[in-house]
């Protein structure tokens, strides 16, 4: 529907974006191996956005939002989905043009479709990150979050990174003209997204809403929190604080919080306090990361 050629299968969409951003000089990374709620949380974005060292990377990040699970019964909502994440630091002057180039690469013609940059200032209170930018709309659908990072971990950034987050399933649904995510063609040959993920959504939804042991989650949350401070207090072989492993524990704590939340185990009054604790941990990692970079510079 977007071009005369066959629309891209889900995996070909990813491969096309990889090739495109690889050609722009991005390191094509693999997904981070810890559960996260959004691609931004990958240390390749959150931590690398700090300090003044240039950085260019692109990767797919599976994102888990336990509360969004719908047992595979909602055509648009998933508790596990993919984000395509690009970070360019400092943001190049022509970032908008580069981005539009990526849309063209996956077959979206801006003379046929209505591409718009609509104000949307992004923030993620859990990691104390914020930025200004837009939701990019294609024919009224939000296909990408486009952000100029202004702060991370509660710290104002030295150098501004440009961050692009593509919602891959939505984008693919748009490109393929499909109304139900499970009907997406995962491969050109016809394997569907549903064949890959439907059963996962059913089981994970049940576990997220009814399965996990709340006391166990709480205990593990506290363990992770304690671990962060312990690791930050330790020193590595070059006398550095162990920021990277400490940040891993922050991610784990954050995911445990999301699971408790989905289980309905977080009272309204407790919510802010949990989020505040995660943000403080994140801030501690961010400060240690910046400090370390300053020392080694």
């Amino acid at each position, binding site marked *: 529907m977007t071009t005369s050629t066959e629309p891209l299968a889900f995996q070909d969409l990813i491969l096309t974006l990889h090739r495109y951003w690889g050609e722009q000089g991005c390191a094509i990374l693999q997904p981070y191996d810890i559960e996260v709620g959004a691609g931004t949380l990958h240390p390749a974005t959150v931590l690398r956005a700090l300090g003044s060292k240039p950085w260019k990377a692109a990767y797919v990040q599976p994102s888990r939002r336990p509360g969004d699970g719908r047992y595979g019964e909602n055509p648009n909502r998933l508790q596990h989905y993919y984000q395509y994440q690009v970070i360019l630091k400092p943001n190049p002057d022509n970032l908008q043009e580069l981005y539009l180039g990526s849309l063209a690469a996956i077959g979206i013609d801006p003379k046929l*479709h209505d*591409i718009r940059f609509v104000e949307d200032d992004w923030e993620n209170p859990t990691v104390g990150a914020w930025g200004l930018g837009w939701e990019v709309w294609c024919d009224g659908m939000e296909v990408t979050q486009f952000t100029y990072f202004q702060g991370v971990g509660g710290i104002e950034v030295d150098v501004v990174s440009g961050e692009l987050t593509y919602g891959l399933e939505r984008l693919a649904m748009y490109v393929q003209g499909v109304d139900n995510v499970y009907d997406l063609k995962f491969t050109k040959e016809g394997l569907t997204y549903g064949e890959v993920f439907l059963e996962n959504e059913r089981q994970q939804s049940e576990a997220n809403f009814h399965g996990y042991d709340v006391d166990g989650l709480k205990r593990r949350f506290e363990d992770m929190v304690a671990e962060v401070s312990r690791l930050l207090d330790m020193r590595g072989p070059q006398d550095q604080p162990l920021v990277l492993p400490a940040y891993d524990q922050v991610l784990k704590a954050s995911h445990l919080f999301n699971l408790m939340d989905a289980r309905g185990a977080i009272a309204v009054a407790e919510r802010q306090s949990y989020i505040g604790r995660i943000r403080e941990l994140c801030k501690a990692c961010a400060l240690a990361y910046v400090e370390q970079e300053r020392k080694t510079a």
Partner: protein
Amino acid sequence: MPQLLLEIFSEEIPARMQQGAARDLDRMVSDRLKAAGLTWDALTTYAGPRRLTLVIDGLPAATPDREEEVKGPRASAPEQALEGFLRKTGLTRDQLTERDGVLFAVLSSKGRATTDLVAETVDQVIRTFPWPKSMRWGSGTLRWVRPIKRILCLFDGKVVPFEIDGIPSDAITEGHRFMGSGQLLKVSDFVDYRTQLEQNFVLLDVADRKLRILDQAKAACAAKGLVLVDDDGLLDEVAGLAEWPTPILGDMDPQFLALPPEVVRLSMKVHQKYFAVRDPSKEGLAPNFLVVANVEATDGGKALAAGNSRVLSARLNDARFFWDEDQKVGFDAWNAKLSGVTFHAKLGTLAERVERIAALAREIAPLVGADADEAEMAARLSKADLLSGMVSEFPELQGIMGGYYARLAGHSDAIADAVRDHYKPQGPADTVPTAPVTVAVALADKLDTLVGFFAIDEKPTGSKDPFALRRAALGFERPAIAAGLKLDLHSLIEDHAERLAEQIIRIVSAQEIAITIGDARQVSDSHTRSQGVTVEQAGLVLERWTNDADGHRRADEFAGRLKAKLRVAALDVRPFMLDRLKVLLRDQGQRHDLVDAVFALGDDDLVRIVRRVEALAAFLATDDGTNLLAGYKRASNILRAEEKKGPLPTGMVQTGLPNQPEPETVLAFAVGAARTAVEAALETEDFAAAMTALARLRTPVDVFFEAVLVNSDIPAERDNRLKLLGQVRDVMGQVADFGQIAG
């Protein structure tokens, strides 16, 4: 004379900030050029998705030479003061002039090239521009709403040379992102600039963009026999989202017309920025939408309309999900949850608020002719929809959804309408509810808000009114007046303050205790300022107190003092409401002096005040009115002058005295008759009749002043006449304070 053209070209500027930015650019540049002594023929600014533009015609090439006089110290001032002044001005003593013992310096400055001033001005404007939110980009230090790409600055056709944080000035702009030629556009002056932009599919002027949207949108609708649903707010927004706005009519799946039209419209507007469309031959909406795209698509917009239509279906599917789910949940479940939702940290939960409103609605119901049970029931349903899925998604639909759900749940129309409309009127343009049950709940809702926030000392101050109490006051007064309600405002407020104090004393004492025991951190920290924490704390303290020997007494005393404090604070609601009524009357076009003349009587019955002002205005529009007013002024001037000399004579006016002029007797009888008539009219609150009664005084007063000398040499005559004038003043004063009226 030369022209200045400035364009700051950036990435997409948020639509809501564009027109404010155009005004700020105008103000900031004007102020700086004026300060340098420049004047010009015309200055215009434009704002659009990617550019802020300013053009000034008839701007001189140089700023004028100027002389400015600066005031210095007194000639007699100590040496140091003079030295300081000379140092500051760079002059010598003999260059100063002396006037009235004060020294003055005349400073002259040479004019400078306008281009220098412009370069400096643009730099300052860009660096200090008051964007609501701004950002840095790349490795630079500049802040702007989004990254600046280029700055076009021409004076008299030539580039004004400057560079701001690495961005050089130039004569170059760009056209439409997708439809333009793709070439950079070199510009010579404003006409050329505007023309080249238009050739490259950019409409510079927001007025042109709006016109294009409306014309094409209406035409697209008319072609299918449909009508666009106007929405000025939406029009403003979409005109800021496209440089070449292109309306396209799309199809909506007709099954969604089963949803309430408010839901469909809002979902279209908030999420998708689409206009709704009506079919003039039918009720409700048409199964269409109108999207304003930023391109004239090469296929005429077919793919684009289809894409938007699919997105809309997904959105409306969400809305329908909420609609269906909400009906399964229902009022009992929502109301049960209201006790978990804090209305305000000191005013308790929404459940407690609903209790208060229900009690108040019952109390008001008989006054408005509503059934008390219905009013109470409507009040009890009134806040439930805040917990519905639909209202969580679209807070604007509060009340409206409650109305739909109440009807579906089988409640009477009177109750459902009251749930729907009890927030009304929300602004000057909103309709005023008149249905009795609705009025009862609407008044209760607003009075609870007013009494509550006043009790906890959260009154509006200056321009700050965070809880919209001014609007709440008007929201109470307009329906009350429209319904002609006789309210005892004072006791209504007092009763409700009592009710409120009983209910919130637990929370308020908890917080007071938390403060008194020195753990103020817990309440001052906004994150932990939840009711749960402080009540728990207070519980501990109260427990400690009760274990104390005289703990009970202390706790009771403490609560008693606090309750009294709350009640007293709430009493300020009444003067506040009267003050808002004054503003309301003036906004409705009533003369200030007439409003003051009525308020001076100290009445607090809203309806009576309004009727009085109206009757007074009508009376003063007549000949009798203006003449009588003149007579009143004359009488009160005389009385005022006499009052200065000593106390005025009091007592009965005598008639039938020897040599008494007839006009005096006539006036005396007329005043007596007027008093009786005015009192009777006021008794029945027939203010028009009161005015008519006063009108009958006009001739006797006129004739009296013509024929009779008040200041007679005979003290008895003088006293009698002064008494008579005093009676004229008093009888008129029962209707209004005529002394406040401009004559």
